[in-house]
């Protein structure tokens, strides 16, 4: 029996709607013959059968939307007997993630490959499949306590706990490759055994082995947002040649203007005035002067210069972050920018942003100073080519004309994509922002 799973048809796709079965249970299906159709967005896709055989079971009915890697059907390819050899040779289902690297086997009966093992364990949730894969669990050894003896997350946790409690540690380096299973596997009780004594922890080698978490740890699936952030961050690091340059900026004049206007702004507009809109204002002026910082790279060869200046503002959420965009930020006053910041941040935190408010940014600003950071090296928000980080503004003794003075100082860190922007340009750009902020003379309200 071979499990057929919902394939992933693209990077951003996490689920698909099964729109039509092209075969009925009992039908013979050839390898690569269209088996069902799925629909995502405005695309209908025919999914071919991974193997030749008889469609044994359809698990997902037409019209249902399921996550990728959910089992949608099973095909009897004539190998349902425990003799696993021919199945092991068969190619894995279209989009099923590759099985983990095989564990060194002792002589004797070879362990069947993951797909086959899982087949004997009944339908499994994606979470269980994932846990089993990540922890290298042979599911045939786990007793299912769910409906129809299905293996649940709790069963896996109990199994893991019992394994870790067992005296022999599979991670111990000097031991020869141990067969994961005794020849006659004892049936694992569903009830977890008593927690291991603390000494057991000390014997675990120092090597970090995330595939078998230590006892007492907790395995939890990332939220979808967390997964997207993780993907985006790694994608960005892989895409751009990140370099960060840091300039020290004297905010004393800005601080004076702000101090003077603060109470008035609060009374008149109902929000407090921070340093950030001053930085945004200066950034817009500098972006107009250095349009390469307000650009994107298309393919490997083209530079897209954006006409509009749409500033992304990183907003920290309880368990993640989002970068809403102030469109045409260069057309706004300091007060207007402050209003946009307050509004977008509030709605980001209450999850009321509209989709169009988080796209089309051309440059981003992150205000880690609000959490006390002096300076950091931010990650570029793709497909942009630079991001400005604003450190906390602090009164600092500085030397001016050989005298010591107390000034309001902050560090501005610009991370830029060295594919497109060289250090000299990045420093001219940041220098421009610095010059505007240090020479701030106009009143704002």
């Amino acid at each position, binding site marked *: 029996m071979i499990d057929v799973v919902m394939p992933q048809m693209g990077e951003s796709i996490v689920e698909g709607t099964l*729109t039509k079965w092209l075969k009925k249970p009992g039908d013979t299906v050839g390898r690569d013959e269209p088996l069902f159709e799925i629909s995502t967005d405005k*695309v209908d896709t025919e999914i071919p059968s991974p193997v030749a055989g008889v469609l044994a079971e359809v698990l997902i009915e037409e019209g249902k939307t399921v996550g990728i890697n959910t089992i949608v059907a099973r095909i009897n390819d004539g190998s349902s007997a425990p003799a696993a050899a021919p199945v092991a040779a068969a190619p894995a289902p279209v989009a099923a993630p590759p099985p983990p690297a095989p564990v060194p086997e002792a002589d004797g009966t070879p362990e069947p490959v993951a797909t086959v093992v899982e087949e004997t364990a009944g339908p499994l949730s994606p979470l269980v499949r994932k846990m089993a894969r990540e922890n290298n669990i042979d599911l045939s050894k786990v007793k299912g306590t769910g409906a129809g003896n299905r293996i649940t997350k709790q069963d896996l946790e109990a199994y893991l706990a019992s394994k870790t409690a067992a005296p022999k540690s599979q991670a111990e380096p000097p031991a020869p490759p141990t067969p994961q299973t005794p020849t006659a596997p004892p049936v694992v009780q569903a009830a977890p055994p008593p927690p291991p004594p603390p000494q057991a922890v000390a014997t675990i080698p120092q090597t970090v082995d995330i595939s078998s978490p230590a006892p007492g740890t907790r395995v939890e699936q990332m939220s979808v947002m967390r997964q997207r952030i993780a993907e985006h961050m790694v994608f960005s690091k892989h895409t751009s040649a990140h370099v960060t340059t840091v300039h020290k900026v004297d905010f004393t004049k800005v601080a004076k203007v702000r101090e003077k206007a603060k109470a008035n702004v609060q009374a008149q507009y109902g929000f407090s005035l921070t340093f950030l809109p001053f930085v945004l204002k200066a950034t817009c002026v500098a972006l107009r002067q250095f349009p390469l910082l307000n650009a994107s790279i298309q393919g490997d060869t083209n530079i897209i210069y954006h006409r509009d200046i749409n500033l992304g503002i990183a907003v920290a959420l309880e368990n993640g972050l989002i970068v809403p965009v102030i469109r045409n930020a260069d057309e706004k006053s300091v007060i207007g920018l402050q209003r946009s910041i307050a509004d977008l941040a509030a709605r980001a935190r209450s999850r009321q942003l509209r989709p169009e408010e988080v796209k089309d940014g051309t440059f981003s600003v992150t205000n880690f100073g609000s959490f006390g950071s002096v300076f950091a090296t931010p990650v570029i928000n793709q497909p942009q080519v630079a991001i400005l980080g604003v450190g906390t503004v602090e009164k600092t003794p500085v030397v001016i004309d050989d005298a010591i003075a107390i000034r309001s100082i902050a560090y501005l860190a610009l991370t830029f994509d060295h594919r497109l922007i060289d250090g000299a340009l990045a420093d001219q750009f940041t220098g421009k922002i610095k010059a505007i902020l240090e020479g701030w003379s106009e009143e704002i309200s």
Partner: protein
Amino acid sequence: MPSAVSEVHAETQRSQRNARVCDLGLVRYVDALERQNQFVELRQSGAISDQLLIVEHPHVVTMGRNGHPENLLAQPEVLARSGIQFYETDRGGDVTYHGPGQIVGYPILDLREWKRDVHAYVRAVEEVIVDALAGFGIAAGREAGATGVWTSDGKIAAIGVHISRWVTSHGFALNVDTDLNYFRYIVPCGLTRPVTSMRKLGCQARREEVVAALVRSFGIVFDRQMENL
């Protein structure tokens, strides 16, 4: 540095991947469908390179696999009396209208030689149209959750795609000087939003100019050398 040289060589070869453009002019929907199916089979077997079919259809209303019959505001018989054909097809998306004054593009691409990503493909088709329109001074863009190309005046191009073994068929329809009254027979793509055309936005460009712009933009976005037939 032999490795660098061979990389450059590989780079050159990759950027020279070809796509053939066939502008077939006015073709009945069923005939174009048959032609597409032939091309898809040939493309799947590797007998031909990527193709971009450009056609114009006589009045026709088509319904995608996920179409909602309630979005068809006139019965097929009523449509027939007005000279409009009606077909149900295997593309993604809901109901749409094709007719004279519209450029319909059917890219037959093997996505395994591109990105293996159906969403990225749809976004790229949108980009092709947006870029081409920009050349005529029309500001168009995407809307989250509403595939197609949008202007401030409404939807200007519709997209619906079918994929079989990573080979694409169906595609996009751009309103150049379409008689927009025909859209009254349907709720395009199930969205109760206005439809517009290049002409309605004040652009007098001729069909050939728009086709040329689309082909150029297609070559850039998909990184293909476009050969005209």
